[in-house]
């Protein structure tokens, strides 16, 4: 009786040793020159899961077609063709800001083919230089970039030498003041028209941002509230509209529309 009751235990030990050996080999041996399947030899500290980018709740209702100069909901990658992407700081060709359309959004994904974050000032331009009085409005969701902006009356072919109105907003997590800057850039030289020391925008949630140019008046709205406004005694005459951010990546744009009053 005793002999038969020990047998399963002995078998367990033998099989266990074989299993252990196999596991050890799998975990410690690596074929030369080949990347292994994921092996968590490095672990990150515990963080909350990455927040999910939910649906855009700020999508506008239908716009009157007579007022719309441009609109895009970035339904597919063909939407990219309507845009010109420029870097407003000096950049070499393979590090230019990279933009993609994904999940029905325009996404700033860093710079260059490697998609590294960069502090390049990145703009996405749309429209014609003849556009004069209009509002450019976008929904945006900032994951980790921290900077969002809009451009109006953009003129020029050399990004660092161009002229335009631009509003830049920083997130609440940015250690900067003021967090809203409305500026006029002439031939690449910036002058602040107005600024406010608000708390900035909250990251990881959807917002709407609008920049209106009407004659000499320039106004910025965040989520329907006027953030800052200015009157330019020597206004830029006309130009294209655009989105602005840094080429850090981590920011999504949706439902862009350019409308006239």
């Amino acid at each position, binding site marked *: 009786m005793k002999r038969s009751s020990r047998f399963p235990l002995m078998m367990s030990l033998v099989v266990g040793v074989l*299993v252990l050996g196999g596991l050890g080999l799998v975990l410690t041996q690596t074929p030369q020159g080949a*990347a292994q399947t994921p092996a*968590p030899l490095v672990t*990150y500290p515990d963080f909350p899961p990455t927040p999910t980018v939910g649906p855009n709740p700020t999508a506008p209702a239908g716009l009157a077609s007579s007022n719309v100069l441009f609109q895009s909901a970035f339904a597919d990658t063909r939407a990219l063709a309507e845009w010109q992407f420029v870097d407003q700081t000096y950049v070499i060709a393979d590090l230019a800001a990279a933009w993609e359309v994904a999940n029905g959004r325009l996404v700033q994904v860093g710079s260059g083919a490697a998609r*590294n974050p960069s502090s390049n000032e990145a703009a996405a331009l749309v429209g014609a230089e003849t556009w004069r009085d209009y509002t450019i409005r976008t929904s945006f969701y900032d994951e980790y970039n921290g*900077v969002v902006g809009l451009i109006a009356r953009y003129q020029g072919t050399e990004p660092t030498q161009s002229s335009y109105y631009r509003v830049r907003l920083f997130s609440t997590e940015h250690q900067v003041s003021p967090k809203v800057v409305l500026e006029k850039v002439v031939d690449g030289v910036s002058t602040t028209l107005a600024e406010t020391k608000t708390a900035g925008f909250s990251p990881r949630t959807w917002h709407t941002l609008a920049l209106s140019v009407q004659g000499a008046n320039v106004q910025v709205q965040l989520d329907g509230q006027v953030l800052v406004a200015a009157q330019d005694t020597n206004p830029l005459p006309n130009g294209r509209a655009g989105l602005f951010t840094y080429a850090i990546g981590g920011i999504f744009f949706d439902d862009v529309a350019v409308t006239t009053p």
Partner: protein
Amino acid sequence: MRRYLLVLSLLALIGLSAQISPVSGQSNPQRQVEFTISNSNNHKFPGITAYNDKVYIGAGINSAGAGVKDLTRAWSWSLGDQASSVSWEAQIGAMDGYADYSSVAMAASSNGDIYAVWSSSKENRIYFSRLPSGGTVWEGRQTIASGRFMFFPQIAVYGSDIYVIWNQSSHPLSLMVRKNGNWSGPYLTQYNTYSVAASVATGPSGHVAISYSTQDLATAIAIFNGTSLSNTNLTGSARGADSSISIDANGKYYAAWRGLDSSGAYSGVFLGESSNGVNWSTRQLVSGDVKGGTVNVIVDGGGTLHLGWTALVSGSLRGYYTYRLPGQSNFMTAASTSTAPLFNSRMAISSGGRYAHLVAENHSNYPQKVLYTRFAGAPGTGISATPVIAGGANSVGVQGKTSISVSFTDLRVVQSNTYQVRWNWGSAPTDANPWQALSLANPTISVSVPNVTSCSSATLYTQIKDVTTGLVEVPAKTDSVVIDSDVQARARVSNPYVALASLSNTDSLAAELALSKGAVGAGDPLHTRIAVVYLDAYNAGDCSGVSSVTLSHNGSSGETYKLVNDRYQGFVPLPDLMNLVTGEWPVTITIQDGAGNTQETTIPIVFDDQAPVFSSVGTPTATPNPQADILQDLTFPNVVVSDNLYQNGTREFWGVWLANSTSIVGDPSTLNWISAPVEDVNSTTVRVRNWSLTAGLTEPLPTPGERTTYIYVRFLDGAGNATTATPLRIDVTSNFNPVKVNLPAVMR
């Protein structure tokens, strides 16, 4: 069957745990300090290096603040590797460049020189400068290369050889080499580069390796053989970027890079290892969205592998650091920066791997500034040697010495490398303390005796240095010892019969002494009539204790007696007994303390075994004490006693031997003889004061009343030898009035 499965499962679980659990004693890295360098406006691609326990940071800056994008100065900051703020800063040199293409890189040489290289992109120049070891002013900048748009320079140092690399857009990476003060190159990599920072590293025997990202986004390695670069593509195109490389003390190469995907098999951090730079083993360490610049890998002198990188985790771009101890496959759970978003980090290791220092662009500021983060690294890693003073003794005797031996244990070194050591009493060594060779085969050095008060503790600080790699042990190791520069002890040898007087019980004495009990207390302390002296040695405050005492005569080997509980008391033979003759017999006492210090004293002992000779005496008298005639002063005029050795002035006897008797006896030798010293009354008369008429008598004290006592007298020399002539006799009649004690009256 269920039991079978249970056992199997448990075994498998144990096996898994054994494979992936960190070694006990390891601890996860911890973020210790993090701050933004306030005047590092607009910088890009900061550089960092460390030497010993100092950290040097470099970056291009523009002090004009926000909105000014071009950089005008290559700047440096320094701090201690455990500090929480910058302690020093200085301009390295001027620059004129676009922020994104005007970066500063730094490296430290094994002697503490700090080298910087930077791109001044609008000038199309690569500059180079040196901060001499311990200095505060950078030398004038030198142009290494010019005429092309060059950026992301990196630098490595081996001895006095300098290796500088830089990128050019859609062009191979360039390497310039400075040997013996002369620059050569550029040497070009096989592949054109993608425009991210590359990495250059040096190793033992002048190994030089470069890691870089090819234009089609592969991670490539280039090994420099002195005249050209041999290239290896580690990943294939579109599989890797942002690499770095490091070489360990044995010449093994480590490369790290990131995958380009945000998840899956081609995402995350990768590590490559190669013993020869040609055949590489690579593996994915962790998957996920790693982006934001170089994956930094550094292997320290002890073989610990350190990794620093930035990654998008939980929606934030943070910096991460972890390490892997030698022989392990798993890294510790990474620690992170608290600030985000960060990117373009560089890392340095200090104090032999104990601290990792990460600098990165902090884009939570506008304009961006340098974020510095220190992580506690791998405890106990890096080179190390523990000093042991005087073999580990608690105290060391330094009497008459100029140096102390120090050996080293627990060596954590690379056996094939060359090492030096420096030391200092009381504080960690500095550059003022010279390095000296340390043999790994016989790791022992001599250090000078510290200038401290005897019996005070002194702490020796030592640091070893791997000359091959330049790695210096930090912090310094210590050992403490009590410095004992003298002996605090007392010892004497004396006439054994004098010593007997202080002994309460002489019954157990050796026969030779016991037979002489009658002469207890007699004699001069420096004379002895037998070949024995009384030795008393004891600790009188020596911090090391007293271990032994040795008696010798005239250089004889002597006899050593161990102290028990810091004391020795006993009757011991005169030293050099075989040659003993009557006369002066100086005894040298050598006391040795616990630290080995010795103290030597010579006592002029006289060995005298010959009795003095009585010739004549005037009439002795006895004068009663006025208070009690039981006490009598005995006076001996004109004593003529001669002795061969004893002399006190003109007197050649030390004292008298007295015996009371209630009757006249035929053989006085049977009486109870008691020795007593005499005092000189004048040049011819001596006296014994207050001799008790009952001394030595065995019968009960008689009641007061007139009676006669017969006092027999012999004369003693210094050694206690008594005259052999018929004793004198003094007949004393007294009333035996005892000594009275008058108490004061008490009023109630």
